[in-house]
């Protein structure tokens, strides 16, 4: 897992209000981590701020798992 991927995990953990050790790529954003739609737009803002990737609020609805968030970020790096 690259540096950016680890940073995505940290930011997902931040919006999920969880320890980063409790966040793994296979977890589902909503069901497992409890991140609602409002958390997704905060995640988009954090990803843009820290990694420079621009993800629209609407686009951020799509990923179902942490792995899919990582994939979305990597597709824009």
């Amino acid at each position, binding site marked *: 897992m690259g540096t950016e991927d680890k940073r995505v995990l940290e930011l997902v953990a931040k919006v999920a209000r969880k320890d980063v050790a409790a966040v793994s790529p296979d977890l589902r954003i909503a069901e497992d981590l409890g991140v609602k*739609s*409002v958390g*997704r*737009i*905060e995640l988009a*803002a*954090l990803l*843009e*701020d*820290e990694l420079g990737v621009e993800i629209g*609020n*609407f686009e951020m*609805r799509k990923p179902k798992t942490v792995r899919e968030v990582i994939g979305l970020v990597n597709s824009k790096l």
Partner: protein
Amino acid sequence: MRTMQDLALKARSRQRTIVFPEGDNPTIRAAARRLADEQLARPVLLVADPSAGGLSGLDLVHPASSPALTGYVQRYCAARNMPERAGRRLVAPPLGFASMMVATGDADGMVAGIEHPTEEVLMLAELLVGLAPDARCISSFFVMEVPGFAGGEGGRIVFADPAVNPDPDPELLADIAVTTARSVADMLDWTPRVAMLSFSTHGSADHPLVDKVVEATRLARARAPELAIDGELQADAALVEAVAQKKVGEGSPVAGRANILVFPDLNSANIGSKLVQRLAGAASYGPVLQGLARPVSDLSRGATADDVVGAAVMVAARGPQ
């Protein structure tokens, strides 16, 4: 029209400040002009260029150069433990800025959505304005005026939730019922009589879909024992006294004279609303969003100036006197 006339009277007496984040849109500008000229509300338009002509007498705000922006960002970041730059990305765009105006009380309500998808309006409103303390979700209702219908509230009736929650579980359905009852009492000054709709009346059918409505009814009553809520009820038992007598008997404060219909899911609420509009020629007002700490209205992207004025009047008619 009666509904809008009543709400316009209320709005005029309250003179609410309503923020429009899409203030450069010509339809929004035309509606804001009417709201101000007819003294229905005090519109604030968020615009890219406050020196643009043709908007004399209207309050114009350019978010990026507004002295309020820094305070809004700081307030949001402190509340959500977010870094300043990320907070600015959310709060500085017009939709975020307008939501913060509402959250801080700088505006009484927001009307948005003519250039934004519903989901984006709802997400930012939930994040920045927040849910009302007693609400668990954002939901919606229509006020229907049905020609020739003598029941409900003088021929008018409320349908919930036709626009937001696709498949609410019993807890959310109970929340929709209680929130709608309180919204209707506040906005329309009715005494709510809430029917929890199903294809079964008081145990006439046995099915998990019925169980959901039975449980939602129990939860809603437990949460708001002061409200008249009955279920599960078929639509005819909810609306027609003679049918209610046969299917329910005596004792229900709701059966046969419901003025609020809570549908079990978005399919039924949306389909039911459109059938009543198209087949019965009903006028419908809404969807009115509810469950937020302060009123927000989501416009259709095809909204006309009349629609925008109506949405703003409904926002302005809500909340304490």
